[in-house]
């Protein structure tokens, strides 16, 4: 088998390396940019695709949901690259093969696409919801395709109500690292936290499709995105010196995703954090590490951040590297300066937190907390130029003054608007869009 040429990765580190005497916390933003697939016959990486469609009884209420799901799945099938193995799964309280009818993946071509679309046209709604069953089937389907970039789409309209939360958690844990999964909720009866847990564990995106009419475009885009991935199973490898502690590792752009708990120790001083598959894209990570405090004049390497690709045989190949340093100084002008990128993403992560906390408080009737949290969110979103979030917030609160975060909760809020705000709370903007972070 010929190995496709790996894409070019560049790693840039943004930080203020200067610390006052006695300090030991080092913060840095690590920006990773991948060139995507290298052009040429060997450029296209191998891929595998599974689509999981909710066929529970509620999909017929209203019936537009089931028909939109059929249309979207057919659009996704059309977007699968020629030769890429795929399958379609119907999800209820059990998982059932739609195409092919037995548990394996078939390569996409004219006839298999036509057969798959015909099978999708025959999909009907009926039954309950047990998402762990769907994930387990997808995992079985990907078995034997470990050298491909494995991607799944999961569509649901309801709560995962025919199993315990533990069943779902266990299934997610088993699938971590096996495939990536983009999750979509249709309508307003599904639970944001559930899909966020699946997408977080399986390193995919989560979003609401409030209007079924937009579903086909969204499905097509997700499959095209997956087909554009050039390298699977990329990990952020962090080396940090003896005596140090990694306090947290978060992806902070394009969305906030805490990777701290996902560390896989790879050596006495190094650990890997999964980042999934990469196409032509750029992501930012916030790394916070506590090192032994130094004396003025000392310089230390606080973190060596590498992007590594793990091949089929488990060998790691370094794709790019950046250094996070600590330099102790008694010049307060140097050590008190907060790095602009670090400040920005600290704000964006807080923005995601206060939106989720504010909506939670609102749900349980704690309106004072909800007002305070969502007010802070309005302030952070405005200051950082996160216009999409500002717009979503304005459907949940009336903004009196964005600069001070003075807001009033709206008396009536559309469910879809609230879920859209919750779902998209983790979307961030990059530095440079704001007007007060200079």
């Amino acid at each position, binding site marked *: 088998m010929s190995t496709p040429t790996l894409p070019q990765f560049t790693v840039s580190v943004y930080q203020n390396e200067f610390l006052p005497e006695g300090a030991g916390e080092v913060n840095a933003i690590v920006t990773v940019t991948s060139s995507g697939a290298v052009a040429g016959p060997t450029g296209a990486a191998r891929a595998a695709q599974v689509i999981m469609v909710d066929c529970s009884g509620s999909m017929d209420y209203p019936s537009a949901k089931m028909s939109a799901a059929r249309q979207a799945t057919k659009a996704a099938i059309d977007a699968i690259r020629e030769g890429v193995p795929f399958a379609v799964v119907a999800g209820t309280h059990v998982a059932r093969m739609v195409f092919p009818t037995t548990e394996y993946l078939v390569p996409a071509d004219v006839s298999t696409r036509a057969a798959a679309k015909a099978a999708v046209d025959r999909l009907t709604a009926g039954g309950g919801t047990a998402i762990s069953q769907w994930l387990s089937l997808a995992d079985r389907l990907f078995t034997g395709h470990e050298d491909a970039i494995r991607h799944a789409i999961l569509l649901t309209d309801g709560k995962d109500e025919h199993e315990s939360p533990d069943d779902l958690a266990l299934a997610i844990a088993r699938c971590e690292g096996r495939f990536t999964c983009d999750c979509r909720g249709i309508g307003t009866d599904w639970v944001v936290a559930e899909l966020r847990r699946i997408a977080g564990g399986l390193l995919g995106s989560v979003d609401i499709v409030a209007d079924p009419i937009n579903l086909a475009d969204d499905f097509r885009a997700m499959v095209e995105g997956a087909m554009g991935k050039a390298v699977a199973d990329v990990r952020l490898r962090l080396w940090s010196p*003896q005596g140090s502690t990694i306090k947290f590792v978060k992806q902070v752009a394009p969305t906030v995703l805490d990777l701290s708990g996902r560390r896989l120790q790879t050596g006495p001083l190094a650990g890997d954090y999964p980042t999934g598959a990469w196409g032509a894209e750029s992501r930012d990570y916030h790394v916070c590490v506590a090192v032994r405090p130094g004396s*003025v*004049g000392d*310089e*230390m*390497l*606080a973190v*060596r951040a590498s992007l590594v690709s793990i091949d089929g045989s488990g060998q790691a190949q370094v794709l790019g590297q950046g*250094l996070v340093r600590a*330099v102790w100084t008694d010049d307060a002008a140097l050590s008190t300066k907060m790095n602009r990128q670090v400040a920005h993403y600290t704000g964006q992560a807080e923005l995601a937190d206060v939106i989720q906390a504010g909506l939670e408080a609102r749900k349980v009737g704690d309106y004072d907390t909800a007002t305070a949290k969502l007010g802070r969110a309005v302030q952070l979103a405005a200051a950082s130029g996160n216009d999409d979030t500002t717009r979503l917030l304005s459907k949940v609160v009336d903004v009196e003054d964005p600069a001070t975060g003075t807001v009033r909760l709206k008396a009536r809020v559309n469910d879809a608007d609230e879920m859209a705000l919750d779902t998209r709370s983790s979307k961030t903007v990059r530095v440079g869009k704001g007007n007060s972070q200079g």
Partner: protein
Amino acid sequence: MTDPRTQAPPGPPDARTCSGCGAHVLPGDGYCEECGTDLLVRRNAPPGSATLPCPDCGGTAFTDGYCDNCGRLAPSPRDRWERDLGVVAGVSDRGLRHSRNEDSMAFAVIGEDTEYPASVIVVCDGVSSSIDPQRASQLAANTTLDHLVRALRQGEPAPASTSAAIQSAQQAVTTLAEEYRDRSDAPSCTIATAVVERGRVTVGWVGDSRVYWLAADGGVSRRLTDDDTWAGQLIAGGAVNEAEAYKAPHAHAILRWIGPDAPPEPPHVRDFAPEGPGLVLACSDGLWNYVWDAADLAGLAGLTANGWSGLAAACVSLTAVALQGGGQDNITTVLAYYPPTASPETTEIVSSNGTAPSDEGIEP
């Protein structure tokens, strides 16, 4: 071609070898017949390249310049290096508050057995707000020394050679900046030079590194350069004294430097005619921030009765004063004898009763 500096000294036949290739050379040879090495020039060796164990944890493996175990910056041979050519000696030290030694020094002695001996010294101080300043300082020091040695061996006068040499360093550091195209803070440094000949000391500088004349036996010691700083301009204009001028918050900000964005004026060059024996001191501000008075420096170098223990020891003592004072910056100290000859004349520095130099020695 009558300038004796371009010719080897007459002398008895003696078995000598070339320092460049080891070939046998005759005492009368100015250059090695085999490899062309200049036999009349001795230069200081550059900082070593040996890998030292980590001072924090004793580790011996380093990656990217940091200890594989505790992350500490790998110790550099540049952290402290001492060189001694007999008639010129120098110490360059990281100090206590900076993680790297961004200063550099380079020096040479020319024709020490001839009738026209000369010592050439260069001190450069990397600008800390630029990236990789030690690259600029080492490149500028080497380039300037090379140029000066070549020019003096060709019989060119020290003042014109000094100006041209510093401009060649400016060229070299500007070329280095091309490696840092996307940076606005390309490597930069200051420079101070001295050419010590019989009857004349020629100094050149850009920035705030200094050259001093330290007179032996009661002569008048003095600073030979004026800093390119706000404070330096005030002092040179006679408005305030040094202690007052350097109290201002931005007094140390340099107005001129060697680097790609440097102001285009030519380097400062002066010459000075000593009237008695003494020492020429070139140093970075890591030293003179602690002791700026020329007479105090002369005393600390040991130019007092019974204090003299040699050039290299004097460099070490001066460096120790700055370290004991706090070592806030890198410290580089290079001393050269005047007159530029080796022992036994050097003992005259403290034993002779030469006349004190006059006050009119400095020519702008």
